[in-house]
């Protein structure tokens, strides 16, 4: 067998052969081709990302929340046993949000609500929010104009079911504040790095022919009488970890909107204050609200002062479970016989942060001479997205 001499020429030949062999097999793509391919893929990705970020679809957003309630209550109303019984299943709220971002500074937001599932039965469709929000002065101020939630209380603005304890919303904010309270109008908001924020809002006022009914006086931006406007101001402090303190004042010079059938003009002032303190898994919420209503009819019906408070300690056992208790007391008159109290204890279970199942025990009493009370339990399901 002839052996190959290890001459420099032979070694060079062998190296060249090996190089061409490896180049044609292991490196099927040249460096230049590889780099070009890489550049092409990156360019494709960039284009895809740009197309995605500029697509109109991204600028229009949809969201929503909803809650199903089951009430099983039994009790006595005005001395009649069983008159306060309530065994009911209700898809209480089905809400859709639609938002649109016109540009970095101008946005639209809306909330359409179907309450009690069917308008042929007990249901009603409401437009609870529909406003244009604009950033002013380099985002230091925001202006909202349209149908806006009044900046008051704890749950008026944040009322998605997974965010609060208890199947039903608390009765103090419902009967005194009164949530959900929205107005057609305009509002300014500013936030500061110190943790202080303030809100100023002008909108339609309440309209109560009797001059003292608060909850029934909400006009819900439906051909709302605007003779007497409502002015709201809120200062909120959230600059320390775990703490929120807020104070809201609302004023309207005549909640009868000029109707003199039942007496003189009824000026109305609401003061509301609340604090939320959160330390690790423990949260304490406390709220106080009171109306001072002028006018002859409010005085004659002992409704010139209406107030209420609640206190709610809660504890989050882990990511999925939380327990709470809540004591509520309120009175829509100045007569202590009409004072109402309600105690709730219960739990929430979140299988997902945006999905909640709730259960609570309720005990309600009114101070009237004739027996007025009920107790029982509520079950609920809620979601948001």
């Amino acid at each position, binding site marked *: 067998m002839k052996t190959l001499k290890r001459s420099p020429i032979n070694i060079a030949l062998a190296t060249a052969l090996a190089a061409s062999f490896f180049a044609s097999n292991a490196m099927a793509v040249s460096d230049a081709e590889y780099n070009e391919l890489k550049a092409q893929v*990156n360019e494709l*990705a960039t284009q*895809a*990302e740009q197309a*995605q970020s500029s697509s109109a679809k991204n600028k229009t*957003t*949809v*969201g929503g929340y909803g809650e199903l309630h089951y009430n099983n209550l039994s009790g006595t109303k005005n001395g009649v046993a069983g008159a306060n019984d309530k065994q009911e299943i209700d898809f209480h709220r089905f809400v859709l*949000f639609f*938002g649109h*971002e016109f540009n*970095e500074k101008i*946005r639209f*937001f809306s909330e359409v609500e179907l309450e009690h599932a069917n308008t042929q039965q007990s249901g009603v469709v409401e437009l609870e929010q529909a406003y244009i*929000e604009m950033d002013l*002065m*380099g*985002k*230091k*101020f*925001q202006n*909202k104009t349209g149908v806006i939630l009044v900046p008051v209380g*704890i749950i008026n*603005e*944040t009322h998605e079911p997974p*965010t609060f304890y208890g199947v039903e919303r608390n009765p103090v904010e419902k009967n005194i504040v009164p949530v959900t309270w929205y107005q057609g109008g305009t509002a*300014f908001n*500013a*936030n*500061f*790095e*110190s*943790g202080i*924020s303030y809100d100023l809002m002008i909108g339609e006022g309440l309209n109560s022919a009797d001059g003292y009914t608060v909850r029934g006086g909400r006009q819900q931006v439906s051909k709302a009488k605007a003779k007497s406007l409502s002015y709201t101001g809120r200062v909120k402090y*959230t*600059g*320390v*970890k*775990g703490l*929120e303190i807020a104070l809201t004042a609302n004023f309207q010079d005549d909640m009868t909107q000029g109707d003199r059938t039942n007496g003189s003009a009824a000026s109305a002032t609401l003061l509301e204050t609340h604090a*939320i303190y*959160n330390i*690790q898994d423990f*949260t304490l*919420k406390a709220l106080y609200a009171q109306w001072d209503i002028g006018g002859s009819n409010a005085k004659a019906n002992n409704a010139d002062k209406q107030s209420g408070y609640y206190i709610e300690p809660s504890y989050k056992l882990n990511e999925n479970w939380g327990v709470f208790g809540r004591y509520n007391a309120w009175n829509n008159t100045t007569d202590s016989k009409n004072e109402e109290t309600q105690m709730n204890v219960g739990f929430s279970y979140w299988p997902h*942060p945006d999905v909640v199942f709730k259960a609570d025990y309720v005990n309600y009493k009114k101070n009237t001479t004739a027996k007025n009370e009920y107790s029982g339990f509520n079950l609920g399901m809620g979601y948001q997205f």
Partner: protein
Amino acid sequence: MKSIHLSLTVSKPKTYPKGHKAKSGLNKNIFLQAIFGFKMVFASLISLVLFQPISYADTLSKQQAYLSQAFPQSIQSVQEHKVWILGDKKQAVQKILGHPYKQMRVGYWTTPNTTPGLVPFRVDFSRRVWFLQEIGKDKYIDVAITIEQGEIKQLRVLEFRESRGWEVKLPFFTEQFEQNTLAPEPTYKLTNKVDNISGATLSYRAVTKLARLALYLDSKIKPTTK
């Protein structure tokens, strides 16, 4: 402090009702001018001119400003790199966010970790800055996160567009992310708990997810070499 100064400066005219009152505000300025010379007027004008561009700054210049303070010694050599979210990364990202990330690539900014010479003079050679976005309720929240050796050094909310939950911008909240690291698979949780903010749950959740995402992606980056 800047922002407070700005809001005080620009909000002043807003506090005057239209017409008559505004005029009296002007008269007041002239009165002050007479007393203090031009100092007051100049100070107001300068603060307006100085702070206006910052407050109107777009996303890119906010990112640029963030990078400048994140790489004070080496801003000139900072470069953007991209990491592709593919394969295992895609699954992990899905687990952290609850959905895929909005893009298939995520950019991060860093300096090359090999410096000429033998001594690594740069202190920030393993520092990476991530600019990430996540929806709070229905708008994107832009967050900048600086990570060094698997630990968050700084987290800032660069842009907040939601109507509620702005409190996530406040220092008491963002400071809780500092020194935080990532627990390993399968939880990918932060090792130090970050407390929720009442009324800002969705924003809190979005920012926390981004902190976890940044830590995860950062752990997947091989040291850059030149």
